[in-house]
């Protein structure tokens, strides 16, 4: 890594570094700075009072709740899928892998739309739900379903390549020595994948809390009831309450920054125990 660069034109390296820094500053750092700048435009007092409004607090609570339901479900699915795919050989595996990745390649709006097609007023199960006074669309269950679909692959995708690399030798040895299947899973597999699992959960959670397109389709934007924090940002922004919108946005941006720091820390400290992320 410490070898001198081969392209050694005098002066070109600093120039390229400068260009890269400029691109990043204008394209990425400036928008981030704007979020915090505009949130504090009317002072710290206004900033906090905007976050203490009942609708904002309700939005924060709802966001936490939706993430608290969808992230563990997707994590459990990710472990199950990785166990089946990485530890066993069966036909149709590549189809299964493609299907697991599928939610990443569809538009968030489509990820919301599909739930409306199923459970909306004119959805396949719309009447059935109406007869029983159940509400999925324009209610919390819809938000959860949309979030689950959007964040579906994160944990599985992180675990599968890692567990494929690790193979079955250690678990097989434990079984030979008399351990039960559950003991082998709990004492060998889980410790082997813990950092990758954490990494996947981290990314899954960040996306779950920040998701906008998919939840916006199923939310109905009922203030204080079905507006998650990103939707709260939109509602305030469309009301021209820019300080309020940016105050809420700054909470989400901080979440993104914390995620980024933890993610980088995991990549530096436990690179070998994460999936073949940078090696491929």
């Amino acid at each position: 890594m410490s070898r001198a660069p081969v392209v050694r034109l005098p002066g070109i390296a600093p120039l390229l570094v400068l260009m890269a820094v400029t691109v990043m500053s204008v394209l990425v750092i400036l928008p981030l700075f704007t979020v915090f700048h505009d949130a504090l435009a009317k002072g710290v007092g206004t900033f906090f009072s905007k976050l203490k409004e009942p609708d904002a607090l309700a939005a924060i609570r709802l966001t936490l709740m939706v993430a608290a339901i969808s992230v563990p479900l997707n994590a459990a699915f990710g472990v199950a899928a990785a166990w089946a795919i990485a530890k066993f050989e069966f036909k149709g595996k590549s189809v299964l892998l493609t299907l697991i990745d599928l939610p990443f390649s569809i538009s968030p709006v489509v990820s919301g739309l599909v739930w409306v097609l199923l459970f909306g007023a004119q959805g396949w199960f719309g009447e059935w739900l109406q007869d029983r006074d159940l509400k999925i669309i324009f209610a919390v269950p819809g938000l959860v379903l949309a979030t689950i679909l959007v964040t579906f692959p994160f944990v599985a995708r992180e675990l599968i390549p890692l567990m494929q690399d690790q193979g079955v030798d250690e678990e097989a040895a434990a079984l030979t020595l008399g351990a039960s299947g559950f003991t082998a899973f709990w004492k060998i597999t889980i410790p082997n994948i813990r950092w990758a699992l954490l990494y996947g959960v981290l990314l899954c959670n960040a996306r779950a809390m920040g998701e906008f397109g998919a939840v916006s389709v199923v939310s109905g934007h009922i203030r204080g009831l079905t507006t998650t924090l990103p939707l709260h940002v939109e509602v305030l922004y469309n009301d021209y309450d820019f300080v309020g919108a940016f105050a809420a946005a700054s909470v989400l941006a901080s979440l993104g920054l914390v995620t980024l720091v933890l993610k980088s820390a995991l990549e530096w400290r436990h690179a070998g125990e994460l999936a073949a992320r940078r090696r491929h």
Partner: protein
Amino acid sequence: MTDLVALPPRPTAGEARRPRLARWREPSVLPGFGLAIGVTLAYLGAIVILPLTALAVRPWEIGLSGIWHTLTDPRVSAALKLSFSLSAYAALLNAPLGVLMAWVLVRYQFPGRRLLDALVDLPFALPTAVAGIALTALYAPNGPLGALAAKVGLKTAYSPLGIFIALVFIGLPFVVRALQPVLEDLDREVEEAAQTLGASAWQRVVHVILPAIAPALISGVTLAFARAVGEYGSVVFIAGNMPMKTEIAPLLIVIKLEQYDYAGAAAIGMAMVAISFGSLIAINSVQLFLAGRGRR
């Protein structure tokens, strides 16, 4: 290329003891396959397959002619054209920007390199609505960059150019992250050999480095394109959403749903998925062709 599981030599005795094992899976010493695959398939079916079946089936409620009417409606076709063309332009600009960023991050040591590297992921990490309102505030006519652009007669926010900027923002990490591992693995001896043989820096870039990174570059650009086509949150705020001018395809799905036109919304959604997959397959075959040529 991907090293699949190296199974330990299969116990032939076990095979003999369990001859009735389903043909589609190979025997293994580990337990729990039934439970794991059961959970996986049930969850996948409920969360991914059932909803996407609805997307594939519901447009046909209005028949082929209905789908055709929906998609050729001037407002819808304008939005589809806008989404796909701006996504392509943005992905194309991401190519040189991504090469620059990846090159600098892999090949040079400078203070703040790790910070810059981490910041590349910011467009991934920042919720799209946050990016959307921040970009709008920056590029609006009264925003700092928007005012600057207005001085040279450019309208950024609430115009296709604004949408383009947002799409470049969200696409950049895909290209950088696709290129970095390949650049790290690039054998520098080949470059050194070229240099020894008298190749100029420019020749080395064009004839040695670019061919080696081309497949990764194409897949990064493709991912950026695919993401841009479906992007919603970071675009709707800066777009201004004027019918026929700055409406993107995902927004039209939202509008159709607000009118309770489920079949129409599903038709647009299905068309987007179909066109995206079509272009992904096309670009993948180009990539395979390039990779095959590079190996020879």
